[in-house]
């Protein structure tokens, strides 16, 4: 069996890993010093672009390319245009818990990545927006920020480079939607957390209307390693469509749930059976959600694919946030979908019509099927409603709700039909309390 990587997670389990001395003892902040003292912002940007680092938040957009959208000083300009970075630590996707591990175990790694990104884009500072339900993480990260200020790694004229950069830690107030980049910015500004219409994109109109770049925690955490070891080293890890180390958080019916750092050319089967120790109780596998609850679900016979973009695309799904949810044969798929849809209906911000109304309708339909009161045609209607939400909303939450609904019904049509026909669950699972 292959070993897990020890790049992003190297500090996990280490004593006193959140202290700046521990981090620097292991070579921490060297990449930042290299960047600030030996590399121009353009060189740093070029290295990150060359590494093909893809966003780890779920959409997988190339990070270097995103940075390059920020406006830069042009010839004749007196000063650098004002702009901000945002670190999205609002990790709320069901099944995803990798960022939390990084924040709570190795905050300086993230912070170093943020400072390097700040140098590459010449930003004024970074808002670290952390999920409200992670008070411990907020405390740890704030302490890391304070330590970095005391060492002169943040603030005015960092290490004599002439570069000023600040980091502000902001806590969310408990809404899934605030993980969406523009909703996060609205929330940061103290407004109601709901996505903005795009364009304009954050690179043109971001936090407080200032051009902004937003990346996921894990994305920033990768940056110091790219600067330290080079883009070629980074690209050599994993499959070309998703290079670099990647964190997979596996949960559900496996013997050893947890976060595993792996190259993306690891197969889903290896993750489940080798690393996570196989299915709980030795029972047969039934279904896997490969990248957070919003990604289309897979059947047990579809897990012999690598967990990169191409591999997962071949079975009609995507890497998403790397949150793998494993379900064995005791799980009622209708019930599982009901659980998910209750979440999406609850978390829909309510501003745009298809998501606000559609998620609610889906929840009611699924609940009805689960309660044994489904009508013929209900499974087909779920798929149709999901199709009417898909691609018609302001932000991806609509898609995020539609994709599981559509895929659950498509992949487990028999089970949905059986519920409707026999008016009970064929796997004898206890229904959730019916809402009807």
């Amino acid at each position, binding site marked *: 069996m292959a070993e897990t990587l020890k790049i992003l997670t190297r500090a996990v389990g280490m004593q006193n890993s959140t202290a700046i001395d521990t981090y620097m003892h292991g070579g921490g902040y060297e990449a930042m010093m290299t960047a600030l003292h030996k590399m121009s912002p353009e060189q740093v940007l070029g290295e990150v672009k060359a590494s093909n680092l893809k966003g780890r938040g779920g959409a997988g957009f190339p990070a270097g390319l995103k940075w390059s959208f920020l406006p830069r000083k042009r010839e004749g300009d007196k000063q650098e245009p004002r702009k901000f970075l945002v670190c999205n630590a609002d990790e709320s996707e069901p099944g995803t818990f990798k960022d939390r591990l990084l924040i709570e175990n190795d905050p300086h790694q993230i912070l170093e990545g943020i400072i390097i990104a700040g140098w590459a884009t010449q930003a004024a500072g970074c808002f670290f927006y952390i999920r409200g339900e992670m008070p411990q993480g907020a405390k740890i990260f704030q302490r890391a920020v304070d330590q970095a200020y005391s060492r002169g790694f943040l603030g005015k004229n960092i290490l004599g480079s002439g570069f000023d950069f600040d980091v502000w830690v902001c806590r969310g107030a408990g809404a899934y939607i605030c993980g969406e980049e523009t909703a996060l910015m609205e929330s940061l500004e103290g407004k109601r957390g709901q996505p903005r219409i795009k364009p304009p994109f954050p690179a043109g109109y971001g936090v407080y209307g200032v051009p902004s770049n937003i990346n996921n925690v894990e994305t920033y955490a990768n940056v110091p390693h790219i600067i330290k070891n080079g883009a070629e080293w980074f690209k050599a890890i994993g499959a070309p469509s998703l290079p670099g180390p990647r964190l997979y958080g596996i949960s559900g019916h496996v013997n050893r749930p947890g976060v595993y750092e792996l190259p993306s050319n690891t197969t889903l089967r290896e993750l489940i059976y080798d690393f996570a120790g196989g299915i709980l109780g030795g029972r047969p596998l039934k279904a896997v959600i490969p990248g957070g609850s919003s990604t289309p679900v897979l059947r047990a016979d579809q897990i012999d694919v690598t967990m990169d973009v191409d591999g997962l695309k071949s079975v009609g799904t995507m890497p998403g946030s790397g949150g793998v949810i494993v379900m064995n044969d005791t799980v009622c798929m209708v019930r599982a979908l009901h659980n998910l849809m209750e979440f999406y209906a609850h978390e829909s911000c309510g*501003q745009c*019509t298809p998501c606000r*109304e559609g998620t609610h309708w889906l929840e009611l339909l699924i609940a009805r099927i689960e309660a044994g009161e489904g009508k013929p045609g209900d499974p087909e209607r779920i798929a149709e409603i999901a199709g009417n939400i898909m691609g*018609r909303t302001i932000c991806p939450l609509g898609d995020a709700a539609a994709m599981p609904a559509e895929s659950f019904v498509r992949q487990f049509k028999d089970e949905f039909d059986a519920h409707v026909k026999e008016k009970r669950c064929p796997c004898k699972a206890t229904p959730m309390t019916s809402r009807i």
Partner: protein
Amino acid sequence: MPLLKIDDQEIETKAGETVLSAALRSNIAIPYYCYHPALSIVGQCRMCLVEVKGAPKPLTACSTTVTPLPPDKKIDGKYDMVVSTKSEITRRAQRSVLEFLLLNHPLDCPICDQAGECQLQEYSYTYGDPASRFDFEKVHAPKRVEIGPHVVYDGERCIKCTRCIRFCSEVTKTGELTLAERGVHTLVEAFPGRKLDNPYSVCTVDVCPVGALTSREFRFKERVWFLQSANSVCPECARGCSVRYDTYKGDVLRIVPRENPEVNAFWMCDYGRLLSERLKDIPRRDRPGIRTEKGWAFYSFEEFWPIFAKRLQASGNSPFGAVLSGRMTLEEMAAYKLLAAKVLGNSAGTALNIASGADDDLLIRRERRPNLAGARRMGIAVSEENCDVAALLKNKRRAIIIREDVVGDAPVPQRPAVVKALQETELLVVAGDAFTATAELAHVYIPLAAWHEMEGTTVNFMGQLQKTARVLLPPRNRRPFYDAVSAWLKASGEEAPEGGFPAWFAEVKKAVPELSNKSLRDLLPRGLKLSEVAP
């Protein structure tokens, strides 16, 4: 400029123009709810989704700008964007969004106050499915919420288009409203401790495309399809907002703003709008009267004029003191001038400048009368702000008060000095649409048609000339002042323009040279901008 093709129509777009705005000005129907030309674009309702050639999914027409393509990438060799409003993709998007909007919307149109002027009804008819597929209990939300003193909110009918919220944050900049809750429980609320009570609050009812916001004064008064409407001008300040009066069986039930970029954009203030309520309280008399020692005697007009002419002759020929009003139309002012020259002994009238408060940033003007700018143009003196009427009538044996300023905020006989001045006259003629305390002091009362009961023209403070309409027929024999003047002149043996408004408008044209080559048709619907300086 980018060339846009919508269905079969080619449209030359303006820089940065959106698909929806290009479609609207080309009379292509794209349904929408949250879009409003005066408000920011949010793309929330998703009703305007259209198929754009080459785009992976339908796009909202309201937020999609037409951007030029490089010459070698043009679609069909010439278009920068090709949009279909009738394709299967567009139709399906429209149908599904409407279905979603109606899921939790009460389908009780028969008892909804918006019925007949509801965009949800109209689009359902045009774009929707005839049957509902939603067989669950609808989500319930607060109904009849008094969100402000003049506005009532119904959370179930609300489609969360946020036009009202954006109106309050972007137009009045008072920011009372917000969305609250999430998902299907989302609703519009005033912030804690606040009420929707800005001076323009009822405009939220105008922008609401459905029956979620209703005006407390108008709601459930009448089904809108029974209303009779006429376009006119608001008389409540120097802005002279373009308005529409909606009436039913002789009553003004509501006044709503009309779009006029030259005057009021899309809005009007609550004070002007609630004139419909104040009209109910005006004391009126329908017949002309003459007061003697024995008290008031009222006559028909046929009987009145000869008696009045005699009374007038008996009163000598000293010049009349004349108090005029900015509520008189230009035609009435022209009539006054003719009357003054021929019968009133060359009296020099003064129009009262009634003022209160301050100009605001939006519409409301400190000058509270609609046609004082017109008076200045007609060569009629306008008094100082809130001047002393007693001083105007000092040493006048005869006096006439036309359209006494009473409906608003400043009736003439507020001060004992004024009453004394009025009582000292030998002949006091009051011509007005209300039988007021001042009229009680008069010797002669001539009832007039009210502002909304006559045709006329008026000039606002920016020089915009607009036409008022005869929204309602005046009761019995009440006439505009110009008609009364025609009869008066005739009874006094003078020649007078005959034929009502058109004849007197011709008199106005003589006084305002700019109008000489204009016809009444030129005044509709937005009016005519007169040059800056009064001739």
